[in-house]
C-alpha cells in the first residue's frame, strides 16, 4: 500500500511540469503558431524561478519570476515570428538554444545552493485517509494549479467566444483577418500564455521537484511537452491522459528496473515514449475525418493594409 501511494505521488510530481508546459503550448498552437522554444522557455523559468526564490526566500515570488522569464522569452519569439514574420521553426529552435545558454549564465551563481521546496497541503483527517488522502489532499500547490489550468483552458477554448476566435485564427488566418479579427494580436497573446506556462513549468522543477538548480535540469521535458500536444491532437482532455501516462510509465519503469527484470535498461527508458505514442495514436484513430491539427499551424501571416 505504501508503495502504491508513493508511486502515485511520484507520478503526479513527474507529470505536472509536462502538463503545465503542454497546456501553454496547446493554446499557442491552437492559435496557429508553432513555438518550438518550449525547452528554452522552461529552462529560463527554472533558472529565474530558483534565483527569485533563493534571493527572497519565497516560493511564490520564485514562481512569479519563472512566469515572467518564460513570458519574456516568448515575447522574443513573438517579435521575430509574428512581428517580423520569420520562419517559426527556425525561431523556435533558436529560442531553445538561447534559453539553454542564458539560463546557464543566470543560474551559474546558484548551482549548489538549496531552498526549502514548496510545502504540501495538509488538511487534518482528509490528508490522513489511507491511500488516497495524500494523493488527493496532500499535494503541492503546483499540482492543483496545473489541473485548474487545463480545465480553465478547456472551458476557454470550447465555451467562450474568445476561445472560438482563437481557434478560428488557428484554422484560417486569412478568413479571421477578413472578418476583422486582429490575428497577430491574438497570436501574440497566445504565444505569451504559452511562454508563461512554460516558465511556470520550468520553475516547478527547482521549486518543488528537486530543491536545487543545475544547468540543463529540464532535460528535454520541453520537447516532450511539444510532442504531447501533437499526440493529443490538440485536445485538452487527451493532453491530460498523455501527460499522466507519460509520467506514470516513467516512474513505473524506474521501479521495474529496481526489481531487476531482465530487460535492458535502455529499452525500459524508452517505454514512456512508446507507450504515450501508442495510446495517443489509438485515441486519434477513433476520430472520423476532419483534420486534427490547426490548419494554419506554423504558417506565416502578413496582413495587407
Amino acid at each position: 500500500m505504501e508503495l502504491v501511494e508513493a508511486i502515485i505521488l511520484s507520478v503526479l510530481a513527474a507529470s505536472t511540469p509536462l502538463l503545465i508546459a503542454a497546456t501553454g503550448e496547446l493554446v499557442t498552437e491552437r492559435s496557429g503558431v508553432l513555438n518550438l522554444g518550449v525547452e528554452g522557455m522552461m529552462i529560463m523559468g527554472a533558472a529565474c524561478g530558483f534565483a527569485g526564490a533563493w534571493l527572497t526566500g519565497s516560493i511564490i515570488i520564485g514562481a512569479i519570476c519563472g512566469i515572467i522569464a518564460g513570458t519574456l522569452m516568448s515575447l522574443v519569439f513573438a517579435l521575430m515570428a509574428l512581428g517580423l514574420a520569420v520562419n517559426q521553426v527556425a525561431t523556435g529552435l533558436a529560442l531553445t538554444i538561447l534559453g539553454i545558454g542564458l539560463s546557464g549564465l543566470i543560474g551559474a551563481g546558484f548551482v549548489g545552493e538549496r531552498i526549502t521546496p514548496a510545502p504540501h497541503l495538509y488538511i487534518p483527517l482528509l490528508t490522513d485517509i489511507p491511500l488516497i488522502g495524500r494523493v488527493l489532499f496532500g499535494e503541492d500547490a503546483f499540482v492543483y494549479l496545473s489541473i485548474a489550468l487545463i480545465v480553465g483552458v478547456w472551458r476557454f477554448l470550447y465555451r467562450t467566444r474568445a476561445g472560438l476566435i482563437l481557434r478560428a485564427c488557428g484554422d484560417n488566418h486569412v478568413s479571421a483577418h477578413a472578418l476583422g479579427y486582429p490575428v497577430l494580436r491574438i497570436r501574440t497573446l497566445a504565444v505569451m500564455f504559452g511562454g508563461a506556462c512554460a516558465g511556470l513549468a520550468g520553475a516547478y522543477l527547482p521549486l518543488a521537484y528537486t530543491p536545487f538548480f543545475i544547468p540543463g535540469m529540464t532535460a528535454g521535458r520541453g520537447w516532450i511537452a511539444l510532442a504531447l500536444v501533437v499526440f493529443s491532437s490538440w485536445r485538452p482532455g487527451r493532453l491530460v491522459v498523455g501527460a499522466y501516462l507519460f509520467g506514470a510509465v516513467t516512474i513505473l519503469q524506474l521501479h521495474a528496473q529496481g526489481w531487476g527484470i531482465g530487460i535492458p535498461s535502455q529499452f525500459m527508458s524508452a517505454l514512456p515514449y512508446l507507450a504515450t505514442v501508442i495510446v495517443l495514436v489509438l485515441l486519434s484513430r477513433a476520430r472520423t475525418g476532419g483534420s486534427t491539427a490547426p490548419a494554419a499551424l506554423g504558417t506565416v501571416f502578413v496582413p495587407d493594409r
Partner: protein
Amino acid sequence: MSDAMPNSLHTREPPLLQTIGLTKRYGDFLANASIDIDIFPKEIHALLGENGAGKSTLVKAIYGLIQPSAGEIRWQGERIVLSGPSEARSRGIGMVFQHFSLFENLTVAENVALGLDGKESFKDMSARLEQVSKTYGLPLDPRREVWQLSVGERQRIEIVRALMQNPNFLILDEPTAVLTPQEADQLFIVLERLKAEGRAILYISHKLEEVKRLCDTATILRGGKKVATCNPRQETAASLARMMVGGEIKEVKAAASRQTTVPRLVVNDLTLAPDEPHGVRLEHISLELKGGEILGIAGVAGNGQDELFAALSGERLAKDPGTVVIEGIAAGHLSITLRRKLGAAFVPEERLGHGTAPRMRLSENALLTGHAASGMVRHGFIDTAATLKTVDKATKTFDVRKAKRDPEAASLSGGNLQKFIVGREILRNPAVLVVSQPTWGVDAGAAAIIRQALLDLAASGAAVLVTSQDLDELAEIADRIAVMFHGRMSVPLAAGEATREKLGLLMGGSSLDQKEVAHAARA
C-alpha cells in the same frame, strides 16, 4: 464615359452608398484611380472588369478591409471612415467573399458566430440562424463542420452569415463562379428577394449573361479606372466585354480536325482511393479520346477533377497499369516522366507552385517539364541555349508579355504565365494534352489565345482533355462534354446536345444510375 443614370427611379432617391474619387495606391501601382460609384437602394449593381482591374481593391475599401489613399466613401449621404470590417458590418454593409472566409474545422454555427458581433448568446444566435436560413430558403445544419459540406452549402453559410446582420447593402464577390446553373438560379431568387426588401447589392461577376439577366446597373473598371456606368440590359455581352477589355476579343474558331481512328488516351474503369483526408474517391472512370478530339470535363470544383488529373499525369499511380493507356501503351503504373516520354503533356490548375516553380526562371521551368523528351539535357548537363530557345518560342507564338527575356515565373501576371505554361507544353508537340482549368483567373484576351491554341493542337491531331468549370468555355472548344460528380463521370454528351440545363443537372448529381453509365461509356 456614359455616366447618365439609366434608371429614372434613381433620380428620386438619394444613393445609399457613394465613393467619390476613391483612390488606392500600392507603392507606384494605382489599384484604384479616383473611382466614383453610386449605389441606390433596391438596386443590383454589377461591378465588371478583368482580373487586376481593381474590383477587389474597391470592395475591400468599401468593406473597411483596406484604407483608401485618397477620396471618400459616403454612406446614406454622410462621409464615413471605416476602421475595419466590424464597423462596416455594424453600419449595415455585408460581404460574401469569393474565396470563402470559412473555417473548415469549425461548425456552421461557430462560423456564423464569428461573423457577428457576439452580443447575443450562442443559443439565441443558433435559433436565429435556423430562422433566417428557413426564411430565405437556404437550408443549413448548424451542427455540421464545414469540411463536410459542398461548395454550394458553404456559400449558403456565407450568405446566411451576411444576412443575419440584416445589412442594407450586400457585396457579393463572384458568387456563382463555383455553382451549378441550378444553384445559381436559386441564388438569384434570393437576391431578387433581398432587392424587393429594399436592400442594395453590389455584384461582382465575370459572367456577362448573368449580369444582363440580374443587374439593374453596371459599373465597368479597367486598369484601376472606371470606364463606364451603364444599364446592362441595354448592352450586349459583346459590348460589355469590349468595355472591360478596351478592344475587340478575337473569336476562337475551330479548324477542320484530323480525327485519328486509334484512341490516343484511354481510361479503363479507374478507381482510386483519395490520399488525403478531404479528398475524393474516383469511382469507375472510363473514357476514350481519339486524336483530333477535345473532351471537356465539367463539374463543380472538388468532385474529383484534381484526383483525376493526378491519376492521368502520374502524380498518383494506379495499381493496375491498364487503367490509363497512352498511345496504346498501358501507363497506369508509369511515372510522370515516362508518361511524358510517351507523348503526354500536362497543365495543372494551379499555376504557381504546381505548374511552375514560382522563384525559378522561365527557362528553368521549361526544363522542369521538358527534360524528359525535348532535348534540353545532354550527357546529364543542361543545354541552357535550348531552354532559352523554348522560352523565346513560347513568348513569340503565344504572345507572352514580360519585362525581361527570362524572368522568374512569379513575376508574370496570371494570364501571361498561363500562356507560357500552355505554350511550353504545346511546343513539345504532345500526342495527348491534359489541361485543368486552362483559363481560370485569366483575362479575356489571354483566354482567347489559350483556347485557340488548344483548338489548333487538336486540329493537328492531338487528343486534348480539358477540365473546366466554365461551361461557356467548354461549349466553345469541346467536341464532347462529360460531367464529374462525387468522383464519378457521366457519359460524354456531344457538344451540340450538352445544354446548360442537362449539364447543370449532371453537375448537381441527378442522373441515371452512374455505374451503368460508366460501363456504357466504355462499351
